[in-house]
């Protein structure tokens, strides 16, 4: 059974259809890149998978390990192993990062019927993961993403990914706003999490990110559907020729 199976997905926002019959199948262990021009529906797809309110699914389905994902609340999806690394992680003043991480991890574990982490075990785990991502301890004491640089916010997303151990990671424009050094650190963090038990969907506008996170499959989105799929060489082809050909094709 595929980990994620999207069939003929149609999605509207404010009565305007953004996705028109999108299909995608992702198996465990695979890394898929979704590329496409601005406005092709890449972020809409990531939001619908994570369960963001405001999107109306008018057709098709999304199955996660064979279950109807669209019937689940965002927190249920999270507990099942769906993780969205946000393009623009929000700032939450007044909630310390450490408090947030523990509350989230224990909420997911509780939903799965697992025991909550004890404080020392939790701290040990967070510190180890933070150190591997060059995240200083004082960042963990600050409010979630408050005063973080673009690179720090993205590293905080990857920290959560490492901590929550999801089976499906969706990385929405992870490279936006990052310089090349920050990008390398973030990509190393993601690569360390590649595993036969886990799949990743990397959404990006630019081929650049795929030099660091090398995908198994590349899909080109245009005007709300996947218009071409191929191996990693498709990304290079796009880099050379641009998206124009696909915009016409769609």
């Amino acid at each position, binding site marked *: 059974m595929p980990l994620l199976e999207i069939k003929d997905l149609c999605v509207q926002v404010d009565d305007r259809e953004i996705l028109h019959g999108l299909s995608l199948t992702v198996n465990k262990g695979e890394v898929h890149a979704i590329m496409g021009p601005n406005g092709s529906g890449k972020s809409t797809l990531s939001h619908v998978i994570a369960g*963001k309110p405001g999107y109306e699914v008018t057709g098709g389905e999304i199955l996660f390990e064979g279950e109807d994902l669209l019937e689940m609340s*965002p*927190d249920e999806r999270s507990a099942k192993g769906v993780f969205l690394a946000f393009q623009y992680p*929000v700032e939450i003043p007044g*909630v310390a990062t450490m408090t947030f991480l523990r509350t*989230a991890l224990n909420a997911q574990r509780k939903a799965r019927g697992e025991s909550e982490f004890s404080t020392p075990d939790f701290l040990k785990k967070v510190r180890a993961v933070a150190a591997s991502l060059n995240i200083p301890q004082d960042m963990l004491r600050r409010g979630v993403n408050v005063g973080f640089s673009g690179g720090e916010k993205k590293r905080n997303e990857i920290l959560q990914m490492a901590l929550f151990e999801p089976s499906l990671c969706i990385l929405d424009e992870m490279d936006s706003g990052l310089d090349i050094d920050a990008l390398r650190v973030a990509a190393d963090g993601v690569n360390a999490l590649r595993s036969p038990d886990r799949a990743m969907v990397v959404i990006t506008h630019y081929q650049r990110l795929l030099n660091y996170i090398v995908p198994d499959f590349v899909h080109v989105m245009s005007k709300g559907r996947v218009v071409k799929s191929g191996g990693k060489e498709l990304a290079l082809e796009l880099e050379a020729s641009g998206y124009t050909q696909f915009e016409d094709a769609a």
Partner: protein
Amino acid sequence: MNVVVAKTDTGRVLSDIFAFARDRLPGAGQVAEIRRQAFEAYERAGLPHRRIEDWKYTDLRVLMREVLPLAARPDAPALTRAAAALKLHAIEGVRRLVLVDGVFAPKLSEIGRLEQGLSIRTLRDALEAGDAGLQAQLFAPDGSNPMVALNSAMMTDGLVIEVADGAVLTRPVHIVHIASGAAPSAMFTRSLLRIGKAAGATLVESYIAADGAKAYQAHDLLVLSIGDNARLDQVRLIEDGRDAFNISSSLVTLGAHAHLNIFAMTSGSYVSRYQATIVFAGENSRVETNGVNLLNGRQHADSTLFVDHAVPNCASREIFRAVLDDRAHSVFQGRIVVRPKAQKTDAKMMTRALLLSDEAEADNKPELEIFADDVTCGHGATTGALDESLLFYLRARGLSEKEAQALLIQAFVGEAIESVANDGLRELVISAARRWLEARG
């Protein structure tokens, strides 16, 4: 000649309440005369209603309807119930002073081994001792406010606490008001805290209900006098029963170079009104007031502050936050007066309301009366719902809707709670806020 007998809506003859209580009210001679006059003043005005500007949002004729008869003196079972309630609100490292149904309860209180420079008496003793200077201070609050006048007439007990010049108390003083009576009734208390020059203290006031206390009214008044170079940290926690009324008044006077920090949180009672007058009588003093209302159901909480910048070079900060669910109603009225001589005044107030329901209501009424020209004064107000993008982020990380809301509410009030300097008291406040959040389900 027609004699009109004032009656409440339910037909109870108002003057009977005073007449029946009179033999239980301490103080003879001059005090008894002041009480009689105060009661007459109250009788003339009656319960304040919405046509009186100051009570526009809190119409006690509609909400309270009548003043209940004086609560009975607590008997042994009442004291046992009070002791049980106290256990839930106990804090380590404080000197606890307990008033049950408006009467000081020595067995539940700690009045022995007083620190150097600390003196504690009951209001009853102070009124009966006939100390004219002290009585003048006790009766200083503005009797033209009907609820203050009623309190002057009816007060049965309270605490008179004095901190001598130079004495800095390390242990906070915790006054706990407990209602225990099963029969709906009213209690009237008044306390005085006088802090000498270069002295310091922390005062905590809690208002709670014992198991079985029904639809009671807590009428309290606090007189605070803060000397030159003195500092007071004050924490007020209104956790009264959900069908109770809490009417609290306060008169604060600060000397020069004095500092007052107030944190007040209301999560209990059906209707509450906190009306405080803060007077700067000496220069270079500072007041910070942090208020938090956590309300749901049909709760109504009104904070009405009057800050009187009578002298130059003083600073005041008022920050009020309200979290409102269901049909709750929060009122903040902030009046700042800067007198002609009060140059270099720095006064600001800010209110922020978080509405969790479409039917909740927050009313803010700032009033600035500025008669000096070299001052900094400002006010602001924001009202809004929880940020949807923050809620989604938290839910995408596994928090349920209620958990995500609770975390954001905690963050919203957390900044105010941070202003409580004492670690133990901050924990007390956090646990009160948590009780409210958990009760939301």
